[in-house]
């Protein structure tokens, strides 16, 4: 399998006044195409920072992070926005749907930046919502949906542009056990059946159990790289 993400000697240092805090310290790793990788570790381990750099919403202090050969750190803000639109689908812990838009319109938002016609956009959105099992809720506002349904809309929004990578930051953190399981099963289906490459940050070992590979981070360093044989 070809590596889709290549990270080399990645460092991220935050400055808080006079104090420097190293969130990531010399991390190097590859993530292969079609993989389902979980990033685990305690709070402050650097797992979210690593995910943010891979997704192009943070920049490394040193080192490189290349996705499909593109060093994300070298892109300008405008190039980065365009790159995120086409290459990254982001799933947040708190769903982050736009409250004044329906499920359909929330999923359609990333497509407004593409050259697709209205009819093409509609077809893509309907397909994405069908994939997450919400075709009958497409005209509901976020407040009319349960937490699990909101997260499924967010997943549809993340995959509607057919991105290279789907990144998820604690996607089950705000869900009850049942809804969390549904979301994790959905991510598994997307990975297994649709071939999507998924990187997921979690501190929950049960959630990490859905991944095929678990990377353990601690104090900004890669502690352990673990292959999971079966779910």
């Amino acid at each position, binding site marked *: 399998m070809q590596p889709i993400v290549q990270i080399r000697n990645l460092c991220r240092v935050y400055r808080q006044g006079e104090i420097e805090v190293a969130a990531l310290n010399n991390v190097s790793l590859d993530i292969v195409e079609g993989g389902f990788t979980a990033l685990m570790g305690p709070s402050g381990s650097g797992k979210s920072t690593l995910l*943010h750099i891979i*997704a192009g*919403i*943070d920049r490394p202090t040193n080192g490189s992070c290349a996705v499909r050969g593109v060093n994300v750190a070298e892109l300008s*803000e*405008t190039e980065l*926005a*365009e790159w*995120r*639109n*086409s290459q*990254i689908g*982001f799933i*947040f812990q708190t769903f*982050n749907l*736009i*409250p*004044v*838009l329906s499920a*359909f*319109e929330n999923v*359609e*938002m*990333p497509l*407004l*930046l593409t050259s697709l016609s209205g009819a093409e956009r509609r077809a893509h959105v309907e397909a994405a919502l069908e994939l997450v099992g919400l075709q009958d809720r497409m005209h509901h506002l976020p407040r009319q949906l349960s937490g699990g349904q909101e997260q499924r809309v967010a997943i549809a*929004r993340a995959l509607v*542009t057919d991105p290279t990578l789907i990144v998820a930051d604690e996607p089950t953190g705000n869900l009850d056990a049942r809804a969390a399981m549904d979301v994790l099963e959905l991510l598994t289906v997307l990975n297994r059946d649709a071939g999507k490459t998924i990187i997921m940050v979690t501190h929950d070992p049960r959630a990490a159990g859905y991944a095929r590979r678990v990377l353990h981070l601690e104090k900004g360093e890669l502690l352990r790289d673990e292959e999971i044989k079966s779910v």
Partner: protein
Amino acid sequence: MTAAGFIVRNALRNKRRLSLTILSVALSLFLFVTLQTALRELTEPQTSADAALRLITRHRLSVATVLPQKYLNRIRQVPGVVAVSQFTWLGGIYQDEKNFFPQFAVDADTIFRVMTEISVDPLQVAAFAKERTACIVGIKTMERFGWKVGDRITLLSQIWNCSPELVIRGVYSGGIDESNLFFHHDYFDELMDGFGKTGAFWMRVRDEASVQPVIDAIDSSFRNSEAETKTETERAFQLGFVSMFGNIQMLIGSISTVIVFTMLLVTASTMSMAIRERMREIAVLKVIGFNGREIFGLILAESFGLAVVGGILGCGGARLLYGSVDIYSLTQGFFTKFEVTPHIFVSGLLLAGALGVFSCLAPAWASIRMSVLDGLREVD
């Protein structure tokens, strides 16, 4: 969904705040348009086509200083003068101080040859001319007091020591002011015990080519005399009259500036609040691929739209209101038409649009500069 649809949804998310902001912009624009219309009315008095051929000779010192009556014959003989009439402001009231309207002592045989744009029944003109205490009144004043031809009225002058007792012999209409009352200067002189003075001389000249020669001839004729004159066109005379109010342009300009600045603060405050509570969503937009220019465009369009809707309500409301009410009666003749011209209307809308743009610049810039991670950390 379109980008425009998204902008409208965002604008409508807090309907109470939206309504109050639009209302405040609309009221400010209404006030702005009102002031600009008042300024126009005061500084650009309406003139009829005939006014171009009408000249006024007054005392060189001020409009309030009288001229010797004997000047009349010399002015009459100036080449190019077709007709001339004395014109003295009575400054009277009818029964009560609030019943004020313009009254002038004039020469009955020439006044309607000078004021050619007003129309009166020739029989009424004849009746007016042959009766010393007769008067002719504009239609608006007749309606205001419910007078009829033949009624007897007494005016009490607030300037001169006299109270003319008049009988209405005619009604005129047309011209730019239908509220005047004209009565005999001879009668005024008699009441003033042979006063021998007049407020001004109003005249009509033969053609436009005669205007400047007549002005020069009259003023040079009375130079170094006991009462030097200033002869000017009707429009120049009216502007001089307005200048007696002081620097009204500066006053209204200052008030308008305060209104515009207040409007800017209101709109900017609303946009800041609206964007501040949406920082997290703006960060999400950035995550899904919106760049700074696109986010700036969304914010700008929302602010611009909000201000322009307020502008349309304010400017349109003023145009409708002033177009439908009798501003003349409402202001007791101070303003005659009070027309919100297309120029003022469009100026108001442009101002609203400009305010919409300027008021969103700071919050839009802040949202562009905000990092995605800082935005995602914002608490709803």
